[in-house]
């Protein structure tokens, strides 16, 4: 049995909308999410733009203060801690962003970009720092002479390697990969995904992987959460979610992703989702998916479905027949 590295309980984040000084509304970004990230695992989060996957991940890392709920890291509630008490937590967690063109400071030398966490966390200075940076660069497949260059001299794939080297610098246990390969070409993406899998095994890392690309999430994750408008609608192992998708949204999402088999084009799709994701400011009542759901029942607009275990930890939030 693996232990939980992270656990969130009833995590909620609303962003207030202010006009003048009055609060006129709230964006329901994340609502009442329970999630366990097992140590050494990779949890994938999928969902469309605005479903709250990035907000959830950033709230877990306490980069955003939750509106309510708990973030438990190694058995301790972190959300109530002061900023200063979080230093060790910051060292053990890291993040790799989507766009390596805006996540690296164009005025800093690579040695400083990658070495910054070492200095901030007082791990190493001067020559020691340079030696550590060198070994980090080698680890992500870059060369020693890359140390004294600037970010603009690197290609997209190399920049993402640099961002990963920086994330690894302070020897973290957990890395959040927020659309980390979405900006890359297929052949470059393949290299980065292989490298991430290798690093995870070598350094015993735990990943949370966010992507809108279902095939990438499937490739990397062992557990997958599907989000829709701020709520978790389905959660389970990779096989549970991809082989026996149960929530109508998950089924529609999987059916909508184009397949690599040209013969599939003539087959009728099981579920075709119409319409668009509604606004998170005034989300639909009851089940948030009910306006687009092909199998909606009369009570779906009134009753909010809870996540229910349908067997072996496969959780689905949909009202039973």
């Amino acid at each position: 049995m693996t232990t939980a590295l992270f656990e969130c309980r009833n995590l909620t984040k609303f962003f207030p909308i202010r006009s003048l000084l009055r609060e006129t509304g709230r964006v329901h970004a994340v609502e009442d999410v329970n999630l366990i990230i097992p140590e050494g695992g990779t949890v994938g989060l999928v969902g469309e733009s605005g479903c709250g996957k990035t907000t959830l991940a950033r709230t877990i890392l306490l980069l955003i203060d939750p509106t309510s709920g708990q973030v438990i890291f190694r058995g301790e509630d972190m959300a109530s801690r002061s900023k200063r008490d979080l230093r060790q937590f910051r060292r053990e967690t890291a993040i790799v962003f989507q766009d390596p063109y805006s996540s690296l400071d164009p005025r800093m030398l690579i040695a400083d970009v990658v070495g910054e966490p070492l200095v901030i966390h007082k791990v190493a200075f001067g020559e020691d720092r340079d030696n550590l940076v060198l070994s980090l660069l080698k680890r992500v497949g870059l060369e020693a002479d890359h140390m004294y260059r600037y970010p603009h001299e690197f290609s997209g794939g190399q920049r993402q390697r640099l961002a990963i080297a920086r994330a690894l610098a302070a020897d973290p246990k957990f890395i959040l990969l927020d659309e980390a390969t979405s900006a890359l070409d297929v052949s470059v993406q393949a290299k980065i995904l292989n490298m991430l899998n290798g690093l995870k095994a070598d350094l015993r890392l735990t990943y949370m992987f966010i992507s809108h690309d279902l095939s990438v999430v499937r490739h990397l994750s062992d557990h997958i959460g599907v989000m829709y408008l701020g709520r978790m609608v389905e959660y389970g192992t990779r096989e549970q979610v991809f082989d026996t998708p149960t929530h109508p949204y998950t089924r529609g999402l999987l059916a909508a992703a184009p397949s690599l088999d040209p013969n599939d084009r003539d087959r009728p799709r099981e579920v075709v989702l119409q319409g668009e994701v509604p606004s998170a400011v005034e989300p639909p009542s009851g089940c948030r998916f009910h306006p687009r759901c092909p199998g909606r029942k009369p009570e779906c607009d009134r009753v909010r479905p809870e996540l229910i275990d349908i067997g072996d930890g496969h959780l689905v939030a949909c009202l039973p027949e």
Partner: protein
Amino acid sequence: MEARENLLVVDRLKTQFFTYGGVVEALDEVSFEIERGEIFGLVGESGCGKSVTATSILGLVAKPGKIVSGRVLLDGENLVGKSEQEMNRVRGSRIAMIFQDPTSSLNPLFRIGYQVAEPYIYHQRRAKRQALKDATGILAKTGLPDAVEKSRNYPHELSGGMRQRAMIAMSLTCEPDLLIADEPTTNLDVTIGRQILDLVKDLQREFGASVLWITHDMAVVAQMCDRVGVMYAGTIVEKTDVRTLFRNAKHPYTERLLRAIPSAVKSADKLEEIPGSVPQLIHPPTGCRFHPRCDHVMEICSRVKPLEQEVEPGHTVACHLFGREREGT
């Protein structure tokens, strides 16, 4: 003679950009043809020349770029070398384009309805009132909900998917013979992207237009295109019908590219990697542009540019591996 006639023939098109850093050889003798009523896909990674091909066809190559040689034949008529005035009569009426990013290709200062009506006013000289009415009709055809009301909205008031529907409506106003779609679903969410794919396919059947579909996504190719050209560093390395491409890809680049995709159907432990990276096009590799990264590289590959060889009917590959086999038989 083929049974279906070619609408568009691109013949040894060579486009270069004359920059201070040197000459960027963006397209190196690209040739393909699109039959009437077919969807032809151009697929490849960033910088392989997909979009330059589109702008070259439309005569929109920006300075310091220039079409150096080659022909673009639309119904037998060469578009290369036509004056701006002549091209204006082609663009929007006979060839229309859907861009990747509808946010930056719609004018934020004009209402959706007017922007869609513009081709009616300019190309077909309809009265403004009639044009606006027709624009609403075609917007409704693209599945835009409440088209009458939405046509009075400005682009920022619509979602990404709705804007892309408006772009598609605009491109179809003059019932073009050829529609060029440059990654129209890349910025959209999975379910919205799928709606757009289905929409373009339905409308293409209804209007009978040919489509040049540009994408980097092999899955989109599998679901949309009839025939495909695979591009690498400014050249077309393989050209075939879509089913053959996924069943029997021949060019070493295509083969490896297909194995680098984390498939949504089965999950392998390790993805195929292509060693090295895409070359600079200022000083592209000599001979075959893929040779520095190729497993099967031979002595001839760095010297001689491989010509397209027909390996089976309708399936051409630009690779010396197949040229040699041919000599042997």
